[in-house]
């Protein structure tokens, strides 16, 4: 073993790096060498600590001391005091920004981290294929507690008071949903877990099922007890083979322990779970469509009422909740509704898992308390925009959501604020876009998705989205006229106003919000016939700058359509009528002579 008795971890996350944390690391290394401590102390740079506001951050192991706002010149003091004498440098210790109280205990500091893991509490911690590891972490205690000590009514009451709302997008009160099923008398009732995560760019449900399947099983059983259902069904995407396998294993293990099946925990409550597979239809995320799909039919939504709580699967009262919603249930039962409702905003309690992706440095699965701002998510947890580019927009709620911009960065994220800002929570996809992304092209991308995924049942969604897409295509091809933007907005609003289900009612959100937030960019496409981000090929013109061209002929040889002419050692020209805008010339030119306008 090495002789290191002390490690100095210097945050090398994007936030801290931008505040010269690398200089801090260098000074520390230098100082340690100076003091001849190289054999006992090691300086290591790390990823983000999630304390970017207080960076650069240095953590000392083994005593877990955090120093914040560390500058290169602080290295001497840290080494002399802490490493050599074992005394903490008081002035660098973490201070609560509001109270100025110095936080010395590492445990207390936890509270300043941006993420809280409730739904993801076991993901990346337990072995999902071993029920024992789940049990060690208080698994099935909530179910046991409910069955032994509480009646369904009391349990529903706790869920209601916790303020838990559906994490699949709608945001309906989970407790109320359970109650609505519970009050309906029927010979059979069902609990359905919606694991048809279809939003492209969202993978939180898959991660939970792959990482912690038992939490969902336990919650479904609790829901079954509360609503009077004896059967649970998980409707899961066939595209998630690993999640399916782990879920199957978990169900088997739970049965072996008697945690599913007859007379669970010796009570007279019996419950078991079966799987139903989705087959590639986004609309099946809508609960009535999902139920039809489970019945072996086309996944077309139907009018509500009747709600599934009255007539759901096979016409019986059915509770449909999504994976993440279920994953929140056992901790609420164990820790109480007061605990849960202490997290989050007034109307949106608890946390939300987001799949942070796109042009952001730390792509990943994050769980944050409701009320966090987009800025914190993107720039602190996400580590900012990839490649140092400029932030342009973020799409929340997937193809049903809207795009939010710079001006929305400081809005606390919750169900209601996102809707007010023209987007929605959705299932939790969060795609970050930078200056290279064209907002007309992105709207077209989302509409292409909706056109593909529309079930075709109602006219506005079936035909309307197609027409929206065609209008956008017209614009990206350079044939747009200013009136087309008004047509997009009117048509989009009518589709939202008249469509049958949530898919159509939200499908124009991306285009409408993008027009609202980036009017100039749309105008540029239709009036100037220009794509400011350089994405829409039809609007680009390749040109050769005569001053830079040396006549090497590389571009002419690369051009697949022979659009470039010019003698050797003479300036070349591009015939724009032949040019197919493939960009090969630009890639090939070593003299930066080819430009795009």
């Amino acid at each position, binding site marked *: 073993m090495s002789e290191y008795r002390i490690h100095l971890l210097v945050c090398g996350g994007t936030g801290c790096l931008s505040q010269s944390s690398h200089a801090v690391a260098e000074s520390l290394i230098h100082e340690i060498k100076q003091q001849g401590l190289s054999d006992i102390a090691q300086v290591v740079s790390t990823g983000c600590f999630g304390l970017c506001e207080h960076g650069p951050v240095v953590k000392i192991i083994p005593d877990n001391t955090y120093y914040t706002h560390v500058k290169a010149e602080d290295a001497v003091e840290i080494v002399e005091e802490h490493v050599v004498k074992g005394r903490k440098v008081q002035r660098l210790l973490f201070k609560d920004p509001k109270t100025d109280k110095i936080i010395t205990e590492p445990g207390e500091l936890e509270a300043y981290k941006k993420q809280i893991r409730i739904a993801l509490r076991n993901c990346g911690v337990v072995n999902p294929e071993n029920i024992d590891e789940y049990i060690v972490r208080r698994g099935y205690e909530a179910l046991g507690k409910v069955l032994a000590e509480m009646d369904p009514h009391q349990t529903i009451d706790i869920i209601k008071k916790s303020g838990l709302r559906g994490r699949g997008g709608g945001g309906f009160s989970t407790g109320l949903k359970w109650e609505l099923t519970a009050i309906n008398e029927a010979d059979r009732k069902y609990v359905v877990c919606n694991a048809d995560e279809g939003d492209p760019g969202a993978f939180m449900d898959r991660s939970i099922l792959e990482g912690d399947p038992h939490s969902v099983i336990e919650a479904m059983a609790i829901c079954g007890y509360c609503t009077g259902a004896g059967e649970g069904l998980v409707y899961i995407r066939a595209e998630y083979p690993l999640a399916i396998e782990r879920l199957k294993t978990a169900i088997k293990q739970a049965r072996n322990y008697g945690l599913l099946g007859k007379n669970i925990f010796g009570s007279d409550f019996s419950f078991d779970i079966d799987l139903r597979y989705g087959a590639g239809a986004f609309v099946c995320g809508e609960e009535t469509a999902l139920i039809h799909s489970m019945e072996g039919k086309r996944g077309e939504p139907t*009018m509500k*009422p009747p709600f599934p709580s009255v007539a759901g699967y096979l016409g019986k009262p059915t509770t449909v909740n999504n994976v993440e919603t279920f994953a929140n249930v056992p901790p609420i039962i164990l820790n109480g509704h007061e605990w849960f409702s202490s997290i989050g905003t007034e109307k949106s309690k608890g946390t939300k898992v987001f799949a942070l992706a796109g042009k952001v440095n730390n792509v990943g699965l994050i769980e944050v308390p409701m009320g966090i701002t987009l800025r914190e998510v993107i720039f602190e947890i996400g580590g900012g925009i990839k490649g140092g580019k400029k932030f342009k927009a973020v799409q929340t709620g997937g193809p049903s959501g809207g795009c939010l911009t710079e001006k929305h960065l400081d809005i606390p994220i919750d169900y209601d604020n996102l809707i007010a800002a023209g987007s929605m929570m959705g299932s939790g996809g969060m795609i970050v876009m930078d200056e290279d992304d064209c907002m007309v092209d992105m709207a077209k991308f989302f509409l292409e998705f909706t056109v593909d995924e529309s*079930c*075709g049942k*109602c006219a506005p969604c*079936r*035909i309307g989205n197609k027409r929206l897409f065609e209008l956008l295509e*017209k614009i990206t091809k350079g044939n747009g006229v200013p009136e087309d933007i008004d047509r997009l907005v009117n*048509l989009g609003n009518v589709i939202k106003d008249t469509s049958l289900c949530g898919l159509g009612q939200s499908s124009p959100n991306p285009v409408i919000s993008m027009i609202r937030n980036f009017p100039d960019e749309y105008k540029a496409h239709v009036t100037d016939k220009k794509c400011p981000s350089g994405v829409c090929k039809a609007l680009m013109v390749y040109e050769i700058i005569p001053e830079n061209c040396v006549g090497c002929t590389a571009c002419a040889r690369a051009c697949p359509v022979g659009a470039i002419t010019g003698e050797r050692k003479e300036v070349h020209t591009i015939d724009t009528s032949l040019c197919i805008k493939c960009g090969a010339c630009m890639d090939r030119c070593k003299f930066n002579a080819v430009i795009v306008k």
Partner: protein
Amino acid sequence: MEKVKLTIDQKAVEVPKGTTILKAARTVGIEIPTLCYMHLEDLNIEHKPGGCRVCVVEVQGRKNLAPSCATEVSEGMIVNTHSIRVLNARKTVLELILSDHPKDCLICPKSGNCELQDLAIKMGIREIPYQDIAEMSTYRTDFSPAIIRDMNKCIMCRRCETMCNEFQTVGALSAINRGFMSVVAPAFEMDLEDSVCTYCGQCVAVCPTGALTEVDHTNRLIRDLANPAKTVIVQTAPAVRAALGEMFDLEPGTLVTGKMVAALRRLGFKYVFDTDFAADLTILEEGSELLDRLTRHLNGDKSVKLPILTSCCPGWVNFFESQFTDLLDIPSTARSPQQMFGSIAKTYFADKIDVKREDLIVVSIMPCLAKKYECTRDEFKVNGNPDVDYSISTRELGNLIKQANIDFHSLPDEEFDLPLGESTGAGVIFGATGGVIEAAVRTAYELFTKKTLDSVDFNELRGMDGIREATIDFAGTPINIGIAHGLGRARKLLEDIRNGKSHYHAIEIMACPGGCIGGGGQPLHHGNFEILKKRMEAIYREDQNKPIRKSHENPYIIKLYEEFLGKPLSDKSHKLLHTHYVDKRKKIIYI
């Protein structure tokens, strides 16, 4: 019944709980436009998929517009059916539907009778929307012997799907594909001819546009009538006379038998005959078959198959040939009246007038689309020449009369030609559900009991209930009779038979609601079943007015047996008037 109070367009409305906004509005005279919605009250079908979104209204406090056809009223609801927001939405949605619909209204068979066209007129559509960008969803046109599917004109109202699956339980049609390319079609978009379609035509009867129409033989008929080398004769089914008047704006239920005969003569038919004659003939054959099986059964013959099922409805025949292939030996082998007529016309009658079979064209006027298919069946051809050359629907006849500039209203009442135009009241009632079995009972009773009926009216067999049953006392022998109209109801009776639970001796089945009067070739009733009921009354009125009301008393039928056939179920009868059934189910061939 709990009542709910609400306001629609400032009018106070009070309706029972559970009423939809659409119906509540109608109670105060507010007509909200609809397109996909269809309510066939007597069939217990309320088709409200909420698909077209034309009937949207504004409900105060609701985020989006509500489809009035599928939204139930609630206490204190405030509804606005014609705000600017509603009108704009409605018009935009209609424009969207039109943007994916062919613009060939001028030559569309449904022109003038198209619900989409009506709506476009009502909404004042004056330009073709989205033409600069709109791609259309296009599909192959499918020509079957009876029905043409031009799905380019489909607006996905899904009414046909409901009729085919829920009411008829045929299952030939289903919504297929997804999104923009979704459409209603048979499996694999195969031709209807290869599918389990029975050609009942109920899909055509409810289609709001020109997507589903009948195969139109009008032009073929005009050509034949103009051909001096051909002798063209016609037979008219009983249900036609009770509905044809509607094509000329006469009250539903107006009997136009005489005017119809006059019109057909003016169109140039050499002889105008009556399918009712053949209906009487059917009763003698089918009735004798019933009596034969019944007598043998009563004598303890265990090999006898009962109940016997009627076989005059070609949609029904197609149905059991593809869905109940294990029961092919149960139905009567008697051909339908249309085919009996053709068979007799091209033998007995052709001989009488000394015209060669090939030169005699037998046309039928039918309330039915399956009849168009029936006359193409190989069983009903002699050396490739069909007994009935082709069949045209009541609608086609109406249009032809208009086209020929015949003033229908001023026509005199004329009589059918003899001998194949003479019929009894029993032949007439074939046109309504229960009529065939009533006609059969009138004859079978007298033949079985050797007694004369006091009254020929068996009211217990009449009506509009989907499945009816009655026990008729055949002088001490109770005969159990079942009746079903609509194939879904027929399926129930058949499943009972299959499971050995049926207690009937005879069952009458008609594929269409109300029997032939509600056939797929009749003037469109647009879901108004009062019209069907009036047609039915007309049929029984005609029966009432007939001097002879029992088939076996038809003098020309008696003569036909004396001169030509011998007796019912004779060898000649078997050859000319009976048929056999085939297993139409696609066989899975293993290799």
